[in-house]
């Protein structure tokens, strides 16, 4: 268990010191997955053979002194929404059951090029639509802190895998909070980079203008290390930013000193109060106080348009999703269902039967919403208005960033809720992303850092830091400072308090 409680940076040091090998590490994580994942269901596919082969290759490179990156040999789990050549990619949906992509997503290709063995693919809400991972067609993932509770979503699999030490690193994707909210409710670190900072090529799109892949890790430094591996311009993604990443690892190391002198921190007044659990607010306030003690200058900022963010998000996201998901028509790949009682079904009938059987309720709900919002006669009132709100939110961010270097809020309004609790109340579920969505709409980066356990339920609370587009380094500096100050208080990482996983 000692290896498994280490951060990726520590594991990289152990590998460098020759105290362990990539094969030994990878095997340790595979054993851990075998031990606990029947209870947690963080993984949809485990590729033991592939991971061990990549690990052996890493050890050989190390012996030859030809390392590919600082994380060479450290294993990783990948959310099942990224295409992996030769490995199933289902997006948590029945409609893609059995599909094996013929190509790697750029993020995956970069992981391979950096020498990280890929342990497997992690569970998620179907097509990343959800905040609990309960919408996975393959069954929910459980929160290692309390297996009756959700691990957040849509990337609950990646977050739970990190929290339960099934992997030292994971990749998530964040369209409205799917990296940060699971990070918050599992006590892990999750980063949504600047839109365009990480290639989306091979990321099966939910909402192309919002989606962004990013690191899910045990520590802020790990996230920075991983971000530098997967980030940067990709000619295959026209929306990827053609300029070098800021120095993220350096910013994380600087922040870890705990000194934030001269940093201006804006507390967003709209992301407080009603709907926020008292214990969440308490831990948030304590964290802000700590940052003040570290030398930061804290100001209150108002972003009035944020109150419309959720509404705008639930028009833009389903609009794009309804179009993206049209390709699942049983013609070329994935599920094909023949309609019952039809002797000689037409292409349309097969399409209809397949989509009916292959998509879950939440996916169908969003396809219907999006199709409606884009329909002629409604477009201006819905999609058009939502785009205007999006502009207003960007302006709010601009104004706020004129007053503060970073903005902060609780990542999620509550701690992890019970499995099944909000399944029949989509609106209540959607509200869990109220604090994370504005960053996606504006394309700015955000991080969720563990802020402790809520006193009332003993469950993790997340602290969100947002920075201007392209200034991802600020997330790492402030995040690492908060992490260092809190871990000093706690006498170790929050994850060291995760209870042993039992059925």
């Amino acid at each position, binding site marked *: 268990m000692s290896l498994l409680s280490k951060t990726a940076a520590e594991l990289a040091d152990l590998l460098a010191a020759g105290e362990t090998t990539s094969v030994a590490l990878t095997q340790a994580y595979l054993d851990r997955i075998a031990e606990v994942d029947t209870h947690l269901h963080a993984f949809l596919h485990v590729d033991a053979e592939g991971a061990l082969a990549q690990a052996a290759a890493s050890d050989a490179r190390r012996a030859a002194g030809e390392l590919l990156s600082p994380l060479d040999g450290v294993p990783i789990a990948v959310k099942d929404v990224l295409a992996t050549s030769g490995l199933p990619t289902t997006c948590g949906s029945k409609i893609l059951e059995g599909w094996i992509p013929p190509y790697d997503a750029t993020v995956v290709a970069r992981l391979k090029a950096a020498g990280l063995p890929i342990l497997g693919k992690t569970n998620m809400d179907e097509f990343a639509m959800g905040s609990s991972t309960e919408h996975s067609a393959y069954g929910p993932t459980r929160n290692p802190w309390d297996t009756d509770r959700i691990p957040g979503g849509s990337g609950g699999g990646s977050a739970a895998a990190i929290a339960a030490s099934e992997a030292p690193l994971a990749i998530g994707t964040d369209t409205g909070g799917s990296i940060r909210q699971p990070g918050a409710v599992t006590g892990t670190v999750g980063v949504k980079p600047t839109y365009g900072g990480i290639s989306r090529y091979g990321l099966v*799109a939910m909402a192309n203008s919002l989606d962004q892949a990013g690191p899910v890790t045990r520590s802020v430094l790990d996230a920075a290390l991983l971000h530098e591996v997967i980030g940067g311009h990709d000619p*295959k993604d*026209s929306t990827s930013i053609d300029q070098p990443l800021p120095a993220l690892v350096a910013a994380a190391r600087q922040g870890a000193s705990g000194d934030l002198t001269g940093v201006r921190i804006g507390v967003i007044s709209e992301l407080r109060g009603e709907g926020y659990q008292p214990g969440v607010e308490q831990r948030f306030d304590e964290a802000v106080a700590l940052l003040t003690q570290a030398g930061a200058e804290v100001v209150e900022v108002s972003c009035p348009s944020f109150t419309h963010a959720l509404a705008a998000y639930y028009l833009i996201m389903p609009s794009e999703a309804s*179009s993206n998901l049209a390709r699942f*028509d049983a013609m*070329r790949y994935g599920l094909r269902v023949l309609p019952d009682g039809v002797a000689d079904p037409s292409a349309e009938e097969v*399409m209809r039967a397949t989509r009916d059987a292959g998509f879950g309720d939440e996916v169908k709900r969003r396809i219907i919403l999006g199709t409606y919002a*884009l329909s002629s006669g409604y477009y201006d009132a819905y999609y058009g208005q939502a785009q205007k709100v999006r502009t207003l939110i960007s302006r709010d961010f601009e104004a706020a960033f004129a007053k503060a270097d970073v903005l902060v809020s609780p990542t999620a309004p509550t701690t992890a809720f019970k499995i099944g609790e909000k399944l029949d109340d989509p609106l209540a579920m959607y509200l869990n992303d109220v604090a994370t969505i504005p960053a996606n709409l504006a394309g700015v980066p955000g991080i969720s850092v563990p802020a402790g356990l809520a006193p009332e339920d003993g469950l993790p609370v997340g602290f969100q830091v947002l920075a201007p587009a392209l200034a991802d380094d600020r997330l790492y500096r402030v995040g690492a400072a908060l992490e260092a100050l809190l871990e000093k208080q706690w006498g170790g990482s929050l994850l060291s308090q995760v209870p042993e996983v039992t059925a």
Partner: protein
Amino acid sequence: MTETLLSFEDALAQFDPAMGLEVHVELNTNTKMFCGCPTEFGAEPNTQVCPTCLGLPGSMPVVNRTAVESAIRIGLALNCQIAEWCRFARKNYFYPDMPKNFQTSQYDEPIAFDGWTEVEVDGETFRIEIERAHMEEDTGKSTHVGTTGRIHGADYSLVDYNRAGIPLIEIVTKPITGTREQAPAVARAYVAALRDILLGLGVSDVRMEQGSLRCDVNLSLAPAGSGTLGTRTETKNVNSLRSVERAARYEISRQAALLAAGSTVTQETRHWHEDTGVTTSGREKSDAEDYRYFPEPDLVPVAPSREWVEELRAALPEPPREKRARLQAEWGYSDLEMRDVVAAGAIPQIEETIAAGTTAQAARKWWMSELARRANEQGVELAELPVTPAQVAAIQALVDAGEINDKLARQVFDGVLAGEGSPEEVVKARGLAVVSDEGALSEAVDRAIAANPDVAEKIRDGKVAAAGALIGAVMKDMRGQADAGRVRELILEKLA
């Protein structure tokens, strides 16, 4: 289901036609609109595909810069404004040959708009206003196997995605009115003019029979002189110049019959049938298909710099109409000769042949007679014959030098077309050179005179016209390899 038709003359007496022409042009870029797949025509099905043009989950498009350049050049050649900033949009509809079930196209922000071009019919010039030229991607190609040939009632369907993602430019005219009885001819002349412009730009193969240029004819009728627009139909699949004219003519007669009988025209898509020369009803458009257009979020806006646009404008080729007029004057061809040359698509060949040193008349002679005949026999375009303008010029140079005559030249063409090498090599290998050995020629003339004493007698008596029979005999004796002029001189000398 035979439609009632009104004669074209009667139709025009009562109604004014208005047309809108939508032309889809496949660009001849090396790679597709949004991926790096090759675009070559005729490859094995589904061999020129990748995750992006197959619409695999996670794949993303990247705009082909050459396609954008071609689109701008087309826009400029059609006197259009070029957008400073424009986006692609998604046109959402389900169809099995659409890999993503949406087409990445341009919607309300075309790259080029508000242009015009002019066409000439029977000496009258018509100005055609261009509404827009926009970029989009082609779909896959479905083949419905079964008796109907349509998706409904097919036993099964095959889809070839090689065509999916080929760059297309759609060029849309504003309503063309006031053309009256010339409407069908104007439609044809416009598509022909467009074809020439595109050919001149070198941006497309513009082969209508291969589908690289496809035309939809929108047509409506309004009471003559009313100045209004009636309900239109959109006739698809019109894939030859002749068909454009015939389809327009047919729709005028068909719609006129409906309206004259007090009925109405249904707004619908119609299919053109090349074989029977009629249009038949396709889908009704009354439910106004809702394509749910929205800006393509996977692509960034296209914002061509003004410097680039001006560079492209400056490098545009001479417009075909002006070029044709200039060449006709330079070459001294009659209107009829020029029309034939244009119809045969022989301008580039003749131009290059002349540039290689041949006279305009000689160049026209070879390309429009000898080579046009051979192309016709083989069912290929002139440009596809395995002979270059430089070779034609070389053959004519051999004729001019007296080394071969026209008859031998035809045999040289045989050799060149058969791949036997350059004209000089063919002459040498086939032993085709005119015999300039005066001794051998003189002996052949003597033999001919001896063999035809009565003819020789007539010539001696001053009936010079009879020399032809002796020339023929000598040419036969020399197996054609003699200069007929010199033979005639020798005969007349010897029989003086």
